[in-house]
């Protein structure tokens, strides 16, 4: 077995809110193998974005890692200095955010800002063997790669688009440019955080189809963060379902959609309306997502769970393996007294 691209083990993160540290992630564990796409799903406040930010070492100042490890290609990121982190993540993780307009510099052409990557990581331009390139050759090589990657993300007429400013592109084209910028470093892992939420449905379909294609063409390893179960089903191999800062279930996509085990996963899937429309009955999940500042004791889902037992109110369930690659954190499956 080769080293997984990403291995998160028992990651716990706290957030500082009003001078107090509040647990926001509780022993989150995830693994992504090379070439795999893992979907991280959950509703708002489930901790999916915080998990992603931890992996990319982009946590805000009011967040701190209090336990666990994050291994990228075998290197542990936790406890490293800022300089070491910069070096590690520059080579290994690329983050694509929801809103491309906030990510792109409006005063710089698309091509120039993508080529900036080579100023930060000049070694990317060095040929594997042979002599070092002259400055002029480097500049030409950088531009050639920019155009190549714009073409890879299916931007029509890439030579022209590389000379355009972000405002001249539509939302879909901007998002493609951001994906090209992420891929040009050939990262080991691409993290996509709700990247199609701001797009129209036909444009979303184009971007999702592009990601699906990139998985095949360049073997992209993907951590896809989304609240949309449809996107998870269409794009990922495995799924981790998060609720209130914990991973409640992790399974192959097909297993999760066919036989979800955790009551929250079951409820989440039953709450998704499908195109078959009014023939299907929507079953809403009663109650609301718990506030991070006041989480329920025991299993975080127990106040809303139809299968809650007395133990659920005071014992935190630990993930139990219920099948190959399938783990569930629920007392229904761990054989503890109910």
């Amino acid at each position: 077995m080769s080293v997984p691209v990403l291995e998160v083990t028992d990651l716990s993160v706290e957030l500082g809110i009003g001078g107090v540290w509040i647990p926001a992630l509780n022993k989150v564990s995830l693994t992504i193998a090379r070439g795999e796409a893992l979907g991280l799903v959950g509703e708002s406040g489930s901790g999916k974005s915080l998990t992603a930010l931890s992996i990319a070492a982009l946590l805000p100042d009011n967040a701190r890692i209090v336990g666990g490890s994050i291994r990228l290609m075998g290197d542990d990121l936790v406890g490293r200095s800022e300089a070491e982190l910069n070096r590690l993540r520059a080579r290994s993780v690329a983050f694509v955010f929801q809103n491309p307009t906030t990510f792109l510099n409006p005063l710089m052409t698309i091509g120039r800002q993508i080529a900036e990557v080579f100023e930060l990581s000049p070694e990317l331009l060095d040929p594997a063997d042979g002599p070092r390139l002259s400055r002029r050759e480097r500049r030409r090589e950088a531009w050639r790669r920019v155009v190549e990657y714009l073409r890879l993300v299916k931007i029509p007429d890439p030579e022209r688009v590389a000379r355009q400013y972000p405002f001249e592109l539509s939302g879909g084209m901007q998002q493609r440019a951001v994906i090209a910028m992420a891929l040009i470093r050939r990262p080991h892992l691409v993290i996509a955080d709700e990247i199609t939420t701001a797009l129209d449905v036909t444009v979303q379909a184009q971007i999702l189809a592009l990601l699906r294609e990139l998985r095949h063409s360049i073997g992209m390893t993907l951590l896809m963060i989304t609240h949309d179960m449809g996107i998870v089903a269409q794009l990922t191999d495995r799924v981790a379902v998060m609720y209130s800062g914990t991973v409640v279930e992790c399974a192959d996509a097909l297993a999760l959609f066919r036989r979800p085990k955790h009551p929250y996963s079951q409820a989440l899937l039953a709450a998704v309306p499908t195109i078959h429309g009014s023939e299907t009955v929507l079953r809403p999940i009663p109650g609301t997502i718990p506030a991070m500042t006041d989480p329920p004791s025991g299993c975080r889902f127990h106040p809303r769970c139809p299968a809650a037992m007395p133990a659920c109110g005071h014992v935190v369930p630990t993930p139990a393996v219920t099948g190959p690659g399938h783990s569930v954190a629920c007392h229904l499956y761990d054989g503890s007294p109910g």
Partner: protein
Amino acid sequence: MSEAPLLEVTGLVKHFPVRGRRFGGHRQWVRAVDGVDFAIRSGHTFGLVGESGCGKSTLASLLVKLVEPSAGQIRFEGQDLGGLDRRALRDFRRRVQLVFQDTYGSLDPRQGMLSAITEPLFTLGIAADRADAVRRAEQAVALVGLDREVLKRLPHELSGGQRQRIAIARALALSPRLVVLDEPTSSVDVSVQAQILGLLDDLKQRQGLTYLLISHNLIVVRYMSDTVAVMYLGKIVELAAAAALFAAPLHPYSVALISAIPVPDPEAPSLTELARGDVSSPVNIPSGCRYHPRCPYAEAICRSEEPPLAEHMPGHYAACHFAGIAADHL
């Protein structure tokens, strides 16, 4: 079936001037709504879908008289909205309510929920006195499944789902006949979305409401609506009973929209790219069929002649020279 529709829209047009002139050129116009006809029957839910820039939100603003049309007519309960006197207008403002998508934007952050709900009761002269207003507000929050305690709260103290319920309660407190729902669930989570959709369904039955549901989310529209209209760049391109439109869409754009939905089933691959590129600008609307630059089936006639919204099957209208051509793709 001869019953007069609750709302009837004919030849509705709204063009907005583009700020500033082109150098040496003519004034330009955003053709947000560009000739729309439809009718909503009492007790029905009429769903309007389309992508950004299709004019659906402008249409909503026209229907509740937040903006005045450039041309065309809107009739509500048989009365032309253009000719309402002050009293009739006030009555109209009560009977047609708009629920916005952005509950942060539509609730004053410093106004308590009681005052948010009772304010329109006073301005529209519905509440007899303060006690009556409070009683109505309490009834309204009970109707949307909230505890009366929420009336003491400020918007930031409520969850997104609770704020959406307050927005609905505020509309219902006025006993409207038509409720315009503009993206009612786009800012809430899936589990809460199911609660809100269930609530809206239930309220419609109990209060005898009529809905105009505006959304970019086809699944929500499919789930809620009796009749669905698909809008593209200011025009309705297809209109039919919801079941018929989703089972056998006639317009290639409707087919593209439906096949663009990520289906929550790993063994049912979707996301076929049937629409090319992006939505064109509503300032420079393409000639002929306005969808032709994105349509994989476009022929010469599509570039030159605008297809009318024609009835291809009973009650099923589409504006396409080759209606039904994309049917195999679903």
